[in-house]
């Protein structure tokens, strides 16, 4: 029997028992839809993490005061720079010099960060201020300038504004040359940053100014020879891991602390990114496994339907065999039918799963710990994988019933009473 004729015969079965066919297919749809949605959400999550951490650059190392410990938190720890930091554990220009003379260091930027009151166009708010070393900031920034320019040597009352702060915070968007009062002092906007979308030091909502003047306007007290963090750009991204270890060691000896009393933390974003990726990978793998269970239930549904139709059609199988159909043809007949269930379920499942994925951002679900919108990424790979997988599942769940049908002896099948 030609394959096309077998296919048409299978199709006639699917069409004739419409209700049962659809119920079977719904089982597959649910399974495929959840797999597609979860894979897409997982990929979206990965991209989110990559994008957010990507703002840092792979060759950037940051040193901040305070120390995370695996078993808890050091008593003097201050991780959030916005919290008023006791001056005793700020980083000093001695630390700055120690770092600067290490091999593999390209640029070092001592930052002074804090909060300050801002008045603009009669609106008042509190913003994050980052005081930077104007000579190196432009060389290390990974966000980019949208309008205007970076800060330069000699700037004193100039500021650069983050994208979201400029465009989304005030009724009247901040534009170049607008006067802004920060911490009681008057400033002029010389540049607006591009949107970074990342954690990148809060660049989207922050204000950048020379570090000298930042010490005067922020509410925290940071003395002249101190920094709230130090950012290092390595000469090469491959050196980051070694440089990080080197910085830790040199700073420990210059600050006269040991691993137990360590009072600073060295962060290499590239390393964090790897860790975060592996966390999200594990998470999406785990979620996919759960989704796979519902797909398995769908497969059992197919197998069940196929067994029922083999039973119901025993007489027809006998008829086909009497007319000369062989085992292989009967086998194909049922496998194609279960494959159709898989394929149709797969198609609708992909559509439903994609719809769910696309709805995710609108539902405003916040990904725990990432502080951003959740998004889903549907790739062609996911779609083809889901379709192929559901067809395979369909065919596989049909194998046992089909073999059962194919091996019936024509006499027994014909004698079977319904």
């Amino acid at each position, binding site marked *: *029997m*030609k394959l096309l*004729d077998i296919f048409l*015969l299978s199709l*006639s*079965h699917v*069409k*004739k028992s419409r209700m049962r066919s659809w119920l079977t297919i719904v089982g597959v749809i649910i399974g495929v839809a959840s797999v597609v949605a979860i894979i897409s959400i997982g990929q979206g999550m990965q991209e989110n993490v990559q994008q957010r951490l990507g703002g840092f650059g792979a060759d950037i190392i940051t040193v901040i005061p305070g120390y995370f410990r695996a078993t808890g938190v050091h008593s003097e720890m201050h991780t959030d720079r916005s919290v008023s930091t006791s001056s005793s554990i700020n980083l000093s220009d001695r630390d700055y010099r120690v770092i600067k003379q290490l091999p593999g260091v390209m640029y070092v930027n001592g930052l002074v960060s804090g909060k300050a009151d801002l008045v603009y166009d009669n609106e008042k708010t509190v913003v994050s201020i980052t005081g930077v070393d104007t000579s190196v900031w432009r060389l290390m920034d990974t966000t980019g300038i949208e309008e205007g320019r970076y800060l330069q040597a000699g700037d004193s009352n100039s500021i650069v504004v983050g994208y979201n702060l400029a465009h989304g915070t005030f009724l009247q968007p901040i534009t170049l040359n607008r006067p802004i009062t920060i911490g009681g002092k008057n400033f002029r906007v010389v540049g607006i940053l591009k949107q970074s979308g990342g954690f990148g030091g809060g660049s989207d909502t922050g204000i950048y100014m020379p570090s000298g003047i930042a010490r005067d306007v922020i509410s925290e007290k940071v003395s002249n020879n101190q920094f709230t963090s130090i950012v290092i750009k390595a000469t090469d991204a491959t050196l980051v891991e070694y440089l990080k270890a080197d910085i830790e060691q040199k700073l420990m000896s210059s600050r006269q602390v040991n691993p137990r009393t360590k009072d600073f933390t060295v962060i290499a974003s590239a390393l964090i990114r790897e860790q975060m990726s592996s966390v999200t990978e594990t998470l999406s793998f785990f979620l996919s496994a759960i989704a796979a269970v519902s797909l398995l239930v769908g497969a059992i549904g197919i197998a069940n339907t196929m067994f029922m139709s083999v039973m119901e059609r025993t*007489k*027809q199988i006998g*008829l*086909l*065999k*009497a*007319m*000369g*159909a*062989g*085992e292989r*043809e009967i086998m194909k007949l049922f496998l194609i039918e279960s494959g159709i269930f898989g394929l149709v379920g797969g198609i609708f499942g992909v559509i439903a799963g994609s719809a769910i994925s696309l709805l995710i951002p609108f539902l405003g679900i916040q990904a725990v710990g990432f502080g951003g919108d959740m998004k889903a990424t549907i790739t062609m790979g996911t779609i083809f994988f889901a379709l192929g997988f559901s067809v395979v599942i369909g065919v596989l769940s049909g194998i046992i019933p089909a073999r059962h049908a194919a091996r019936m*002896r*024509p*006499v027994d099948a*014909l004698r079977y009473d*319904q």
Partner: protein
Amino acid sequence: MNIIELEDVWKTYSMGEVEVQALKGLSLKVKPGEFLAIMGPSGSGKSTAMNMIGCLDIPTRGRVLLEGQDIAALNEKELAKIRGKKIGFVFQSHNLYPTLNAIENVQLPMRIHEFGEAEIWDKSEELLGLVGLSGRARHYPSQMSGGQSQRVAIARALSTNPLLLLADEPTGNLDTEAGKEVLDIFSQLNSRGVTVVMITHDEKTAARANRIVRMIDGTIAS
């Protein structure tokens, strides 16, 4: 040459622990062009005899020769091919494929045996006309009466130009009128040279044949 020849055929079924001897040394010849009725009460082994004639089953002992060839020498696949091509079956009930319409049912054996598309359509239309159901070509089995279904089944059984039309109680589920129509078709086909073997328990039905073999206890009653 005989179309089918049964030589001292024995058939034993085991029903659980009990062995049932359905055929006990049945010998029978079906000659080309004859209209043979095999008669007998239930339990006489006539259905088992039909399975043997139709090559649906193989004997426990003895030989079945289809056109002189021992079917025991064929494997399952070869047997299926030969059986499907050379024997046209008409069963008592559930004869038609329910998901296919009348003409598709007639075409089914030809599709199984991979006839050409043009031949499939010419032949199926011709055969539906022969049984008087041209107007019902697109009707599904659930939309046809029992008599119509049996006529479609006959058209289908003829589609591969079989040596033999083998009918198992073809009128068993039909009223007198519809039964008569079906039997008329058999007679008509036989007069055109089609060999017909019919299994029945009904005297009147058997009377339409030109040879009657009576079975009892798994063999021919003398």
